[in-house]
């Protein structure tokens, strides 16, 4: 169902994200300061200050899911967040989306505190969250309808974004008639159609087959380059993070903290199979290993009990 067309990115001009000097880890493990392309920085697009969140567990105890997270996301940046499962990645995105409130700390967008969901930040859920009572086309239209766009414009954009994810012929299908990968693409189209400033993506491609994912990587990179959107992309696939991100933030497991940041300075467009991408991913994975082990141990401890 995916047309056999090649996606020749028409030499998109990749933006140079505005960055503060970022401390990062070089490939040989020494900490270096990465050269900055553009020193002068406006206010961060998204800013997290000392953000913590604890969940009330069933047993009544408190689970500290996020612990004093400090994070600046710059306008137009493609930020990837990696971490073992259960480290609070989804929670972090929900907080930025305004669907949850932090226990303490402050989240700001363009300098203003985030208190509620807004169509300037659209989240693509890990489990797509399409509405089963609507057709694919109506799902894509939903956000635009809530924004109050005219019928004509809604139809226009629906057509455009469905074509972008190669699902034009499924406009009148129901979500349950599509495969998991197709549903995730509908969710992508639905988010893009509202044209948000910030796109929050929660492991959106985890369930996709390799070809579809490669295609969507290219597509997403192109959309990002053309529109200058800010993207926060959560994944547990380090290679994917390196493939896409300007910067990769590594989160630790329980408590969820920012363990390390890596600036990915490889030229774009990149490919998942590139040696450089693999090498950088390897480097990050070395750091991630401890956290994965911690998360697995927690899982097994739970199973044993």
């Amino acid at each position, binding site marked *: *169902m*995916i047309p056999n067309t090649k996606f020749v990115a028409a030499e998109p001009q990749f933006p140079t994200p505005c960055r503060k000097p970022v401390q990062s880890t070089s490939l040989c493990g020494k900490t270096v300061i990465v050269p900055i392309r553009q020193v002068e920085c406006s206010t961060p697009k998204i800013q997290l200050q000392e953000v913590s969140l604890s969940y009330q567990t069933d047993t009544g105890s408190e689970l500290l899911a996020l612990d004093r997270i400090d994070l600046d996301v710059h306008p137009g940046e493609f930020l990837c967040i990696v971490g073992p499962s259960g480290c609070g990645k989804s929670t972090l995105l*929900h907080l930025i*989306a305004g*669907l949850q409130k932090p226990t303490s700390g402050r989240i700001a967008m363009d300098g203003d505190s985030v208190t*509620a*969901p*807004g*169509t300037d930040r*659209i*989240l693509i*859920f890990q*489990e797509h*969250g*399409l*509405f*089963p*009572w*609507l057709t694919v086309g109506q799902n894509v239209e*939903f*956000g635009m*309808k*809530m*924004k109050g766009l005219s019928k004509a414009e809604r139809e226009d954009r629906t057509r455009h974004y469905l074509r972008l994810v190669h699902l034009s012929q499924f406009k009148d299908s*129901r*979500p*349950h*008639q*599509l*495969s*998991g*990968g*197709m549903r995730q693409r509908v969710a992508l189209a*639905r988010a893009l159609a*509202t044209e948000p400033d910030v796109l929050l993506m929660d492991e959106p491609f*985890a*369930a*996709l*087959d*390799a070809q*579809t*994912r490669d295609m969507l990587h290219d597509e997403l990179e192109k959309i990002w380059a053309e529109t200058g959107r800010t993207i926060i992309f959560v994944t*547990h*696939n*380090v*290679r*994917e993070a390196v493939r896409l991100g300007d910067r990769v933030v590594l989160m630790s497991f329980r408590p969820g903290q920012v363990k390390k940041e890596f600036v990915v300075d490889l030229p774009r467009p990149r490919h998942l199979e590139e040696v450089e991408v693999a090498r950088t*991913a390897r480097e990050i*994975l070395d750091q*991630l*290993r401890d956290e*994965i*082990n911690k998360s*697995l*141990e927690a899982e*097994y401890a739970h199973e044993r009990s």
Partner: protein
Amino acid sequence: MSVANHSDLSTAVESRAIGVRTDHAAPTRLQNRRTTGRGILRRITNQVIFYSVLLGLWALLAKLRIWPPYLFPAPWAVASALWAGLQDHSFLIGIAVTMKRMLIGYSLSVVLGMILGLAVASNKFLEETLGALLVSLQSLPSICWVPLAILWFGLTEKAILFVLLMGCILSVTIAMEDGRKQMPKIYTMAGRNLGASGFRLFWYVMLPASLPYIVSGLKQGWAFGWRSLIQAEMIFLTIGLGQLLMMGRDLNDMSQVIAVMLMIIALGYLVNRLVFRTMERTLQSRWGLAPNA
């Protein structure tokens, strides 16, 4: 716990993903249709056999005259009673009056039940107090409301409707409340995320998301309401199917009693089939719910 197995998350994810088929929906659907097609044929055959045997046994017992015919009428006596009742319009009038009551009472119950259900679901205090009360009230057979209805309304149409309402409304209310509480959280989150809030969140997201619960509440409400109504009619003795039943008893006409019982069953079955099965089917095919969900 070895690290090596998990040393490269990315390749692990890739190899898992390669096996994913991208369109598995179509073949499954076709398969389903074929098996249900064959299943329906088999079911009809079975039912024809079952009812033939049942009717044969009944005819045999009646022929043997173990019991006198006024206590145990033959199938043909019931058939002729049915025919006579339809001929002189008494059954038709009974059906019309009963159905009219049902429609009025049921519509009222649905509207009030939904409002009540929404109120209970949207307010923590009401949920913990009124919600719990409603659940316990549902264990009360609706016939228990008859004395109260008579004292309040006398032997009137209103009293019958009241009993019907009490039998029906709680199912709708509780289903509505269940729908609000049990529908997957992701739908409201997705709705809020896409800019819906307040009334629009309710109207465009929460209401449709709880539709499966609402439909099952409507169905159960109808079944309970139908029983309550017939019971009430038997006591109040105004025109209607319940009254026809009692009339058969008063005239010692067992054929009429059974004929009316058959009509009550048939009407209940028809409404269920035509209205509620259709609703459920539509929902299933649109939402992709499992046929027995």
